[in-house]
């Protein structure tokens, strides 16, 4: 049985967590994110976050299956998706602190963002190492 690639579960966990942010924001109007996402850039950020998370989810499901790589664009742009999610999460944290005030709750955005950055570079390294090993 083929085992999932390195960092697969980490990527899945973070992607699902990121998807939960816009979901909670849209369903609960009293959350911090819902209170700051009231203007066009905020909504654009929310949509971008949903798009990046969905592309990452599709990449996780379609490219890491035993049948082959069904979504090569997602594979090539994987690092952009993760870094994009990290940037939007930090942007949200920044806007929340500036508009509402400082709160330790921003750690819920900044810590996953930091993990996403680390995961991006680890994934690039692991992916190219695996490619090199397969070629030799």
């Amino acid at each position, binding site marked *: 049985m083929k085992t999932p690639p390195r960092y697969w579960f980490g990527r899945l966990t973070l992607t699902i967590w990121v998807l939960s942010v816009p979901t909670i924001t849209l369903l609960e109007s009293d959350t911090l994110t819902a209170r700051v996402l009231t203007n066009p850039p905020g909504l654009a950020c929310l949509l971008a976050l949903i798009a990046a998370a969905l592309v990452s989810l599709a990449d996780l499901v379609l490219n890491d299956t035993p049948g082959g790589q069904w979504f090569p664009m997602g594979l090539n742009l994987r690092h952009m998706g993760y870094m994009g999610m990290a940037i939007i999460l930090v942007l949200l944290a*920044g806007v929340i602190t500036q508009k509402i005030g400082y709160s330790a709750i921003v750690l819920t955005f900044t810590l996953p963002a930091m993990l996403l950055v680390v995961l991006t570079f680890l994934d690039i390294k692991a992916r190219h190492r695996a490619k090199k090993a397969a070629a030799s």
Partner: protein
Amino acid sequence: MTHKKKAVATPAVRYVLVLLRAMVVLMWAPVALAAVTAVRAGRTLEVDGGLLLWSVILSTLSGATALAWRINHLLMTEPERPLVRPWLFGTVNMLGSWVAASLAFIAGRAGEFDVWYSLAMIVIAAWAGAKGLDTLAERYIATVRLPGTGGGFPPSPPPPRAAFDQSQPPAPGPSRFGNRRMDDDRGPHGSDR
């Protein structure tokens, strides 16, 4: 360019690609202009410490994104080539993003933009700055002989493409970075950690 280019179908497509590349380089010109105008007009900038902190974090993330894009592209196109002088490679990217983000921050404060627009502008400017400086470095610095690479002044015969040249392996001899690729994390004696 140091990496292999894919064949482009028509001159029109090539023209559009050149235009897009020029746009990336020129994207931060309006920001620079706005910053210079604000400074020359003698306007005082109210720098909010919190906003400055978030700007630094966001510009660093944006620069790191450009760096990840570049590293991935190099490893995809030429997986066997060593990445020469990774410190210079990373410094150019991050310096470009920080400079452009600083200009965007000054312009945002001078224009008294909303937090959303100010931070979003910093992210875009940092990305464009990293890409722009990277393009310029590859075009001009790659042709300059760096100190310590041999030769006197003026450098005799035509200088090698030292800084970002992926076509030649690094010169032999003791080096802080050796002939290792960036993804080679073996220990000092070549063993896996």
